[in-house]
C-alpha cells in the first residue's frame, strides 16, 4: 500500500498511543474554534496531532471533510515522517539528508488507481466555500489554506513543490503569496508571455511528502523525485483533470485543487500570522483561479497552524539543509539549531574549533545557505545550540563586542522579517562566542570526573 496520510495516521497511533486526539464535537474553523483549541493545547505543552472529525464549511454547513493539524509541532513527528526511531536533532538531520539524496523516479498510475480521483468537482460545479478553511489568527485577512503547491517548470523538465499560503477570496479564487524563489521565477517566465501557470494545490498527503516541499533544492533537482526519496518509495502520480499530462498530481493525496495563477492580475491579501509569530502585512499578491477539486471519500484537510510552533517547526528541512552546508564548509561542526534557537532568524552552530577563523567560515556558510538566517551564534561543541541558555552563556562569557561581533550590511533579507525595512535587503550579524585558541583561557568549572562516580542514591533517599 502506497504511503499516504492515512498510513501516517496509523503509524502515528502505533508509535504514540492516543494520537491523534480526535475531536468529535462540531467545530467552526472559520470562527477561530480550531485555532483556539490548538492554541490551548500548545500552551499546555500538549503536542499531540489533532483530528477534528466534525467541522463546518465556510457556508456554516456540516462538512464531509475533517481537519488535521499539529503534525510538525515537535521532532517526534518529524522522526515518524522520516521512519526514524531517533528524534535527536543531528540524527534527524543526517536521516533527512540521506533520504533526500535517494531520489526516486515518479510512477504514473491510471485514474482508476488514484484515490484522489474518487470524487471530482469540475469548474462549473465547484465552490471553495464548501471547504472547511480555518482562520488562524486575529486580523488574518480571511480563511487561509496552507497547502503544498505543485508546478511544472515552463520547460517541462522539472516538478517544483513549495508551501504557499493561500487566502480564500470567493467560490473560485484564492490569493497566493510567492516568495521570489522557484515558483515565482517560473510564473514570471509564463506571465511575460501572457500565459497562466497551472498548479496543483495539495491539501493533505503523507507528512514526508508535505515536508519535502520546504526543502532547499536547486533548480536542477526534480522535487517529485526528492519527495520519493523522503517517502522511501516512488511518488505515485496521475494526470490532472484540467491539464492532463501537462500537470501530474499526487495520486494518493487527500484533496487536490487544480487551478492556475492568472497572468497580469493581482489581488489584495493578508495580513497573515507567519512563522515569525508576527502578522505579516496586507500586501498585493497573485491570483489563483480554481478549475477542479478532486478528493478521496471522507477527505482529511491538513493545515499547518499559522504563527505557532507547528508552523515554525515545519521548516525542519531548511534547518537540515543549513546543517549540511555548514558541515561541508567546516567539518568540525557538531550541530546547528535554527528552530530552537530562540528566534526565527537566529542560527546557533556548535563546533569543535581547530583553528581561529573556523567560526567565521561556518557562519558565512550558514548565511549563504538561506536568507532565513540573519544572526549566527557560534559556540563550542560542549554546548547545545538548541538550548538558548547555553548560547547566551557563551555570548556572556566569551564575547567582547568590539572584536567578536561582525556586522553585515546589504545581505539578502527575508520579506517575512517584521524588522526589515526594504523588501529583500537587510542586515546580519555573526557572533563568535567560542573560546579563543590563540591565547590562554580559563577552563570551565566542574566537578572532577572521578568524584562523579559517587551515586546520589547511596547518600540521599531520592527518586
Amino acid at each position, binding site marked *: 500500500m502506497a504511503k499516504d496520510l492515512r498510513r501516517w495516521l496509523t503509524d502515528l497511533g502505533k508509535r504514540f498511543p492516543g494520537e491523534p486526539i480526535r475531536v468529535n464535537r462540531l467545530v467552526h474553523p472559520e470562527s477561530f474554534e480550531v485555532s483556539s483549541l490548538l492554541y490551548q493545547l500548545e500552551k499546555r505543552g500538549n503536542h499531540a496531532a489533532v483530528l477534528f472529525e466534525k467541522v463546518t464549511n465556510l457556508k456554516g454547513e456540516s462538512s464531509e471533510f475533517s481537519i488535521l493539524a499539529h503534525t510538525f509541532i515537535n521532532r517526534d513527528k518529524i522522526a515518524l515522517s522520516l521512519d526514524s526511531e531517533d528524534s535527536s536533532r543531528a540524527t534527524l538531520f543526517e536521516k533527512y539528508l540521506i533520504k533526500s539524496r535517494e531520489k526516486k523516479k515518479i510512477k504514473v498510475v491510471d485514474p482508476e488507481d488514484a484515490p484522489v480521483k474518487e470524487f471530482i468537482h469540475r469548474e462549473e460545479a465547484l465552490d471553495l466555500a464548501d471547504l472547511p478553511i480555518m482562520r488562524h489568527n486575529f486580523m488574518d485577512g480571511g480563511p487561509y489554506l496552507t497547502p503544498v503547491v505543485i508546478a511544472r517548470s515552463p520547460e517541462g523538465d522539472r516538478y517544483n513543490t513549495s508551501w504557499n499560503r493561500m487566502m480564500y477570496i470567493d467560490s473560485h479564487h484564492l490569493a497566493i503569496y510567492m516568495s521570489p524563489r522557484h515558483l515565482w521565477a517560473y510564473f514570471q517566465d509564463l506571465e511575460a508571455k501572457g500565459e497562466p501557470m497551472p498548479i496543483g494545490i495539495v491539501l493533505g498527503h503523507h507528512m514526508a511528502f508535505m515536508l519535502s516541499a520546504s526543502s532547499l533544492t536547486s533548480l536542477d533537482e526534480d522535487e517529485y523525485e526528492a519527495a520519493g526519496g523522503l517517502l522511501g518509495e516512488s511518488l505515485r502520480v496521475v494526470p490532472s483533470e484540467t491539464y492532463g499530462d501537462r500537470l501530474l498530481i499526487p495520486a494518493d493525496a487527500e484533496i487536490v485543487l487544480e487551478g492556475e495563477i492568472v*497572468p*497580469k492580475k493581482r489581488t489584495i491579501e493578508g*495580513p497573515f500570522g507567519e512563522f515569525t509569530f508576527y502578522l505579516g502585512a*496586507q500586501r498585493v499578491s497573485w491570483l489563483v483561479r480554481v478549475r477542479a477539486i478532486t478528493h478521496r471519500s471522507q477527505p482529511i484537510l491538513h493545515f499547518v497552524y499559522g504563527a505557532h510552533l507547528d508552523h515554525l517547526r515545519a521548516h525542519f528541512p531548511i534547518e537540515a539543509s543549513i546543517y549540511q552546508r555548514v558541515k561541508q564548509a567546516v567539518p568540525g561542526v557538531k550541530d546547528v539549531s535554527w528552530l530552537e534557537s530562540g528566534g526565527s532568524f537566529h542560527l546557533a552552530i556548535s563546533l569543535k574549533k581547530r583553528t581561529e577563523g573556523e567560526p567565521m567560515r561556518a557562519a558565512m556558510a550558514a548565511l549563504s545557505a538561506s536568507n532565513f538566517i540573519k544572526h549566527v551564534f557560534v559556540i563550542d561543541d560542549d554546548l547545545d545550540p538548541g538550548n538558548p541558555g547555553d548560547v547566551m552563556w557563551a555570548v556572556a562569557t566569551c564575547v567582547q563586542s568590539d572584536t567578536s561581533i561582525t556586522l553585515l550590511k546589504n545581505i539578502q533579507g527575508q520579506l517575512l522579517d517584521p524588522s526589515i525595512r526594504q523588501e529583500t535587503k537587510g542586515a546580519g550579524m555573526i557572533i563568535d562566542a567560542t573560546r579563543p585558541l590563540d591565547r590562554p583561557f580559563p577552563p570551565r568549572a566542574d566537578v572532577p570526573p572521578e568524584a562523579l562516580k559517587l551515586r546520589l542514591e547511596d547518600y540521599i533517599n531520592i527518586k
Partner: protein
Amino acid sequence: MDVYFLNCPQCKKNFHCDANLRGFAIPRHCPHCDHYFYAEEDKAKGMPRGTAFRSLTRIDAETFYLPEKAEKKHG
C-alpha cells in the same frame, strides 16, 4: 518591510498594510468586516516597489481582482 496602519471606513477597526502601497490606487480589504475599499490618498504615480509588481505595467481596475461582493461596496 515598512508597514502603516489604516482604518476601515465601514467598521472603523484598523489593520496594517505594506507601506509600499501607500498612495497608490490599490484596493484594501478589511480583515475584520470583509469590506473592500480604496484609501483616500490614491494619487501616487508610477508603480509601487515589490516583487508582485515586477511584471506589471500599470495599476488600474483591470489589474486587481475583486470578488463580486466587493464590486457593490468599493469606490
